[in-house]
């Protein structure tokens, strides 16, 4: 007789484990099936370990500005092995934390790979041994992995995905980053700051193409000032490998080709959903472009089967997966007042230098809705705290519906903006208008004052510029 649960979650990444915690809190008998490590890509190979790496590169950057702050030191060096080791320790600490959280919430963790067997049944295989389980509800949270193209495949040696780029054994002197989304740009920033010659190739006409156009333009200038080479509207035609380096053939929009020889290549051209070998087709679950199709409640259309996180639609962000995990758990338990996720209220953060953060519509998209728009901008150079910190690069931008005062979008670039964006996100969620944001008292001196000023600027009345 197969062991049975109220809910079985397939995949223990941020979507899956958070869903499991919430299910546990709601008194559901819950299991999580994980084939590798709890915490998924986020904790093991994504968000968290890269933040540890970027912290090291930030310190390295500051060490080169010691004089400015009144210090001196000679013979500055870094130890790549220690930087990577710290990143792995941070990751380990958090994945251990997830194990504890599973135990605390009475969630059973099942090791192995799960396959759907229909009508609430799944089979989990570990080391050739297969065990059957059953559940009233199944939540698919198998996540995604780096996308590869024919001719653009990672080998883990010279051509990397994020996974290899996170644990370098030696420091590449030169690097080609293919793709300028969040993942590509964060690695480009890390390696450039530590001294590699970095070239970023982007097929679209600007870096960080999902961000507001002004943010993209500002970021590109900042990266170029740091010595990064940015090639937009450019594709990688092929990669020719030798034993120690890679020669990439790049083709511009105009059809001109050039070659570039680098020590390593990082592929960051998007993700594909992990939809294989779970029995999705047999179960009748619809897949489009490697992602599972769901409705606003994360229902797959097969009764009792939900799907969340990177496995389903964008934005492909850990916090979006977590939130979907909570929504699904509460739907299953019949909690009242649950609402579908509104992705216009999901912020996005990129931890390059300078940092980028945003929520809601870009100015262009806001104008496309046909509404009357007003936008405001305030630069870091006008903010006392930013000057005191020595971080005067960047700006904050707000986009409002001019008629209703609804904050449609907010876009920021500069130091610590990833910690600031939540203010606007709360504002959006609480449905505050320009009036409430203008009436809010922001503490002085903080970077957050720029958020206030950018709101005032939308009405043409910023105070400090």
């Amino acid at each position, binding site marked *: 007789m197969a062991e049975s649960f109220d809910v079985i979650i397939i995949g223990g990444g941020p979507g899956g484990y958070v869903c499991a915690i919430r299910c546990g809190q709601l008194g559901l008998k819950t299991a999580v099936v994980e084939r590798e490590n709890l915490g998924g890509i986020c904790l093991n190979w994504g968000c968290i370990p890269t933040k540890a790496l970027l912290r090291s590169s930030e310190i390295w950057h500051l060490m080169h500005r010691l004089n400015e702050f009144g210090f001196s030191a000679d013979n500055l060096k870094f130890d790549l092995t220690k930087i990577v080791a710290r990143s792995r320790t941070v990751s380990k600490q958090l994945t251990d934390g997830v194990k504890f959280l599973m135990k605390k919430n009475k969630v059973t963790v099942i090791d192995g790979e799960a396959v759907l067997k229909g009508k609430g049944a799944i089979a989990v295989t570990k080391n050739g041994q297969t065990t059957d389980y059953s559940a009233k509800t199944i939540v698919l949270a198998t996540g995604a992995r780096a996308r590869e193209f024919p001719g653009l495949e990672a080998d883990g040696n010279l051509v990397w995905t994020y996974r290899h780029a996170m644990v370098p054994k030696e420091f590449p002197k030169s690097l080609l980053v293919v793709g300028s989304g969040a993942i590509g740009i964060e690695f480009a920033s890390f390696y450039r700051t530590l001294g590699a010659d970095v070239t970023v190739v982007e097929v679209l006409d600007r870096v960080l193409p999902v961000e507001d156009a002004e943010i993209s333009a500002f970021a590109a200038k900042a990266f170029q000032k740091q010595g990064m080479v940015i090639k937009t509207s450019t594709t990688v035609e092929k990669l020719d490998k030798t034993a120690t380096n890679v020669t990439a053939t790049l083709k511009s929009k105009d059809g001109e080709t050039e070659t570039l020889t680098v020590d390593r290549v990082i592929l960051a051209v998007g993700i594909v959903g992990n939809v294989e070998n779970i029995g999705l087709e047999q179960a009748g679950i*619809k897949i489009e472009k490697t992602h599972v*199709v769901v409705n606003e409640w994360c229902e797959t259309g097969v009764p009792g089967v939900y799907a969340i996180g990177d496995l389903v639609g964008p934005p492909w962000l850990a916090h979006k997966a977590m939130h979907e995990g909570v929504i699904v758990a509460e739907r299953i338990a019949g909690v*009242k007042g649950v609402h579908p996720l*509104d992705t216009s209220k999901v912020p996005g953060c990129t931890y390059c230098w300078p940092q980028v953060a945003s929520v809601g519509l870009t100015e262009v998209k806001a104008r496309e809705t046909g509404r009357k728009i007003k936008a405001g901008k305030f630069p870091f150079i006008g903010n006392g705290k930013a000057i005191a910190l020595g971080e005067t690069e960047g700006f904050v931008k707000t986009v409002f519906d001019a008629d209703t005062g*609804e904050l449609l979008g907010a876009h920021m670039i500069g130091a610590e903006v990833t910690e600031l964006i939540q203010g606007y996100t709360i504002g959006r969620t*609480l*449905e505050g208008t320009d009036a409430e944001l203008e009436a809010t008292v922001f503490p002085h001196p903080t970077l957050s004052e720029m958020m206030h000023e950018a709101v005032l600027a939308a009405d043409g009345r910023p105070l400090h510029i």
Partner: protein
Amino acid sequence: MSTQILMPALSPTMEEGKLAKWHVKEGDAVKAGDVLAEIETDKATMEFEAIDEGWIGKILVPEGAEGVKVNQPIAVLLTEGDSKPAPAPAAKDIPASMQAIRDALAPATGDAGVTANPLKGEGRSSEAASGRGQPSVSSEATPTRQAMPADLPVSGGGKSPRGNGAAAPHTDDRVFASPLARRVAQQSGIDLSALKGSGPRGRIVKADVDAAQKHPSLLVGEGAPQGRKGGDAPAPAALAPRPAHAESPSAPTGLTPLPDARLFFKEGEYEAVPNDSMRKTIARRLTAAKALIPHYYLTIDCDIGALMQIRARLNDKSPKGDGAYKLSVNDFVIKAAAMALMKHTDVNASWTDAAILHHKHADVGIAVDLNPGLITPIVFKAETRGLVEISNEVKSLAERAKNKKLKPNEFEGGGFSISNLGMFGIRQFTALINPPQSAILAVGAGEERAVVRDGKIAVATMMSLTMSCDHRVIDGATGARYLQTLKTFIEEPASMLL
């Protein structure tokens, strides 16, 4: 008089449920929108609201009772002048077709499994009470209720306490609403005190105001809050188990929805093709249009012999290369319809409760087949444009429609529409009005027909036009006068220059 309050069906497949909790007791005064009880099924618990005002005369099913059959009386509502429950009227008024549907959905006969049920066995006749006449509690609670946008604001009158399960009871002294909801409500003249909030603790949020704005006229537009998957990843909502809080905005309020078609077929004997967002929009808008707009139809035949000759001559004069054009019959129809609209502004109009909006320009929507699906982009100010410009504009709109490149402002609004199925050999048909417009012209094929002229049978190239009119805006003679002008413009295109 008294009304029986019946056990609601929370889904088409629901046969029975548990009366989880009474929120009222005998003798309580209730108003529309007050939560009477919570009903539990195997899928969910739903609040059950009153739609009539009165007093609870008697509670027939005790709290906690399980297996309460759908449509079984659970309480008696007394209205003014009442003192005791009256017997339910007989079932004579139910139309046969409705009865058949109800039978298909009704539980098999058997003991209701409820102890305190003095009216046991009267379920069928009590349906009659709810089937017609007074707004009934049962139709409130059947899927019609679910079909309304998210917990849609049911006006409870300004002074009544608003019930909301999740909400702490509060009085009307303070309306809880987000600043944005307040601003939008103020701008659109909506009374917040008449809304029920879907936010935390019953707070009114912008989505509630938006829904209320769209609801009264059911000019649904994009309807309920947008699913985040957009058009490129249709959500298989039609396949999903019907959740208790399902929002299926395709049925207008007040109408009993049709039973779910899946009830009539065995699984495996059909392929379920999920509805994409365009299909859902078509369903929602056209269901609302047909149900809420009093359509009538006028057909007129036009001799297009002269038009065909002019068209041929003009097309012969088209330059080669740059500036080349090829005018279609439909381009002439668009131009003629637009010119006629300028003469008959009472047809180029939109209904609102307070006033009829007479449009100052002829913005003519053109139905474009996307196979599957359709969309109606608009040629704006068609009266000011030449035939070549209209022709190019229609080609550009159709091309971009097929590539899903149209912007909302290119297909929203308009004063009139044209749908042409002539290329399929359709001789004559009727089309559904595209709100907020008041008329649509269905254009049939141009074909040689035998006509009688001066007592002799002659051959003429004829085309039949059928206009669907909103009778709230366009009276019969008004529509006929418009078609008369249009016929003149089509039969003698030069008369448009007069």
